[in-house]
């Protein structure tokens, strides 16, 4: 980076939906502006001054879920200090969060701003899943792909990847996926704001091994392989060195962004290899190169497990496991809290929840908490570096970021 960049003042609202004790589809639910206000207050209350220069807001499909566009207009509502300041909305499907943070970084790196408020959110509970599937299909090439697509469009895309993976590497991979689910819920149970926080099911692995039901869902994935329908919002601040001073922040309250890898696939071109996340692999390589780090330097990971198979493929794309071996890597406990690379200690998308546009920002908030040793489900970190991957669509819009705590600085 041409200058130092930091992330701080992270906040997640509860990621709300079925699974939470208080969820009742019949009762009226909190509105999106309540979530926005809550996350803004959560971030701003951590600052000594709210002198912000710019705002970025991310959401995938508010236009359809909420019939709401012109989202920049909500930034001054969230942060009164942003009134009459530059505000931008960002969208990149489920990778919106990563793009939002990257957009804020550009503002600071270009010297246009010293402090940028970044927020992302999504509200999906107001639509039955069967209709939500149509909306989410907009993350793919809708006009050309929706008609021939499955009723459950995105689960089917990743079901096809799972099918190809099983064909190539064996059906035992299902065990890795079940283990992933077990870990996601186990972690979620330690995060009071996670959607699956109240999950009390005993034999999670057994549930994860449930045979898929192609008649009612998709061919190669069961419901536990999938992240759920969620409402939620997250926010944080991206600042320069000067911004740190202005906002009265100390170095032990921030993490430094040391690596950035961004890659965009061609949405009109189907994946060449269903068992490989090419765009993700490229973004990760770029991030590691930009940070001048190797994988072994990374101490904690947040990956985009929209589906359990995505987690397996992500680990292989990053390089933690060879092709076809990620399922064993997970089964061997290497992604657990005390494993080689503690991953998704928040619970990830499957355990914490996946309000699609918000997840990328949520991942950064969780990394920031881990590296500052204040996460609800804290790992013992063997390195000051954390990495996150925010992915949109079927491996199309990918942002990989590496951050570092400043403990020993």
């Amino acid at each position, binding site marked *: 980076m041409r200058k130092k960049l930091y992330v701080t003042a992270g906040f997640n609202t509860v990621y709300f939906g079925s699974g939470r004790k208080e969820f009742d589809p019949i009762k009226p639910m909190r509105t999106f502006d309540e979530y926005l206000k809550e996350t803004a207050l959560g971030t701003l209350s951590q600052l000594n001054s709210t002198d912000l220069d710019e705002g970025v807001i991310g959401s995938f499909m508010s236009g359809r879920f909420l019939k709401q566009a012109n989202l920049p207009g909500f930034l001054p509502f969230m942060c009164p200090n942003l009134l009459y300041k530059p505000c931008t909305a960002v969208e990149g499907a489920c990778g919106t969060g990563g793009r939002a943070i990257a957009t804020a970084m550009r503002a600071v790196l270009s010297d246009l701003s010293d402090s940028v408020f970044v927020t992302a959110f999504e509200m999906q509970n107001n639509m*039955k899943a*069967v*209709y939500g*599937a*149509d909306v989410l*299909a907009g993350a793919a090439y809708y006009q050309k792909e*929706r*008609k021939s697509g*499955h*009723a459950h469009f995105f689960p089917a895309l990743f079901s096809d990847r799972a099918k190809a993976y099983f064909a190539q590497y064996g059906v035992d991979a299902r065990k890795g996926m079940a283990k992933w689910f077990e870990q996601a819920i186990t972690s979620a149970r330690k995060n009071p704001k996670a959607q699956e926080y109240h999950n009390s099911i005993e034999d999670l692995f057994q549930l994860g091994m449930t045979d898929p039901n192609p*008649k*009612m869902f998709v061919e190669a994935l069961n419901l536990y392989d999938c992240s759920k329908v969620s409402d939620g919002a997250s926010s944080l601040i991206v600042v320069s060195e000067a911004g740190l001073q202005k906002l009265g922040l100390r170095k032990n309250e921030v993490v430094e962004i040391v690596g950035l890898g961004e890659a965009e696939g061609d949405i009109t071109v189907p994946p060449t290899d269903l068992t490989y996340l090419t765009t993700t692999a490229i973004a990760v390589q770029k991030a590691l190169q930009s940070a001048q780090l190797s994988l072994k330097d990374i101490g904690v990971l947040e990956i985009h497990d929209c589906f359990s198979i995505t987690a397996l493929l992500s680990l292989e794309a990053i390089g933690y496991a060879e092709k076809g071996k990620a399922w064993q890597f997970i089964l061997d406990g290497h992604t657990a809290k005390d494993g080689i690379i503690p991953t998704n200690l928040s619970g990830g998308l499957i355990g914490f929840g996946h309000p699609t546009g918000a997840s990328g920002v949520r991942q950064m908030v969780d990394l920031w908490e881990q590296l500052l040793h204040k996460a609800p489900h804290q790992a013992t970190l063997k390195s000051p570096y954390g990495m996150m991957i925010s992915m949109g669509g079927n491996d199309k819009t990918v942002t990989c970021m590496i951050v570092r705590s400043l403990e020993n600085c």
Partner: protein
Amino acid sequence: MLNNLLKKVAVIGAAGKMGFQIATLLLQEMALTELATTGKIGSGAYYLLLIDVDQSKFFPLKKLLKKSIQKYAEKNINILREKYADNPLLISNEEIIQAFVEGALNSVYFEDDVVKAKGSHLIFEAIYESVEEKVTLFKKVKSEKGFYFTNTSSIPIQELNLQAHLENRMIGFHFYNPPEVQKLVELIPLKNEELLKIAHELVKRLNKIAVVAKDAPGFIGNGHFMRECLFAFHQADRLMKEEHFTFQDAITLVDEVTQKLLFRPMGIFQLMDYVGLDIVLNVLTIMKLPLPVALLYQTSQNVLGGQNPDGTQKKGFFSYEGHEKKEARHLPISFSWKTLSKMTNREEVIKKELQNTFRSDHLESRLAKEFLIHSLEIAENLVKENVAHSLKDVDTVLKLGFFHLYGVSLIKDLYA
């Protein structure tokens, strides 16, 4: 053959609780059949006529139908996408579901004149349980080729067939409440192989399970239930005479015994309240069974049980708050029906519990044992009289129709 017959169907009594759900099930099947066989829906080739004397119910009925069909379409979206695959204009789930719902509703017509059903290939009747009313109705709608399906739970089919001169083109097709959810259909055939075959096929298409019963009053379901009710009254009587219980205390005890010690969702008296005491009385009358004095008295006071419009339980033998019975003896309960229904080894657990009960000398245990033995006897008699083909069939009716967790065969095993 059934596909052709499904092209013109009538449901009489469509605004009633049962009639409406029967209409919904038929509409779903007709819509799916039209779509599957022609690739289109609502073309006018399929015609569902809903008849009820109360015209004011037609609009709310249409709204409710729309809601039900929509839910059905949402649940079966995978199938619908397949069937609509060749239509390039229907792309999203929402567009497909909307097209299906609109098309299905286009096949529905409402009439308040029963005669309009004449000419339908299949005519379903779900009106009040009265021989005269049903006979009058069937006389009005009969034609040379129609098939007549009656939802009666107790009236002998032959009686209706003969009085209305339906030439054996009638069959008992008894849905259980609520038809949308309950898997059981009691089939009571007359001498008509063709119609029985059609009925069996329809049961399968509606995703239900058929149990064939002989044409005796009450068939299997009410044949068993009504006789259990009579025994319950008998037990209450004895408690009053021999143990000096008040009537209310007596029925409360028998009710709790049948619920808690026999692991049923409701006690026998609460079940009577649920069904409606006027209905119980009516069925007993149709079946020419004795009419308990207590029941006659209760109904004469017009305290009839049944449900309020919001679904809560009305006062009958017991008073209720919402669905909860107010009177209780608080017999200790080892396992509730709800808990047991979720256990995979429930029959084992129930057997063990019942064996313990049978060994005990407490009043409630003796009552439980008597009731269960009598329940088995009722079932065995139904088989002896050929009303049911086998005890297994009785078990199916009790488990599917009455939510019993175990059949009478288990009671038999207790003695083995």
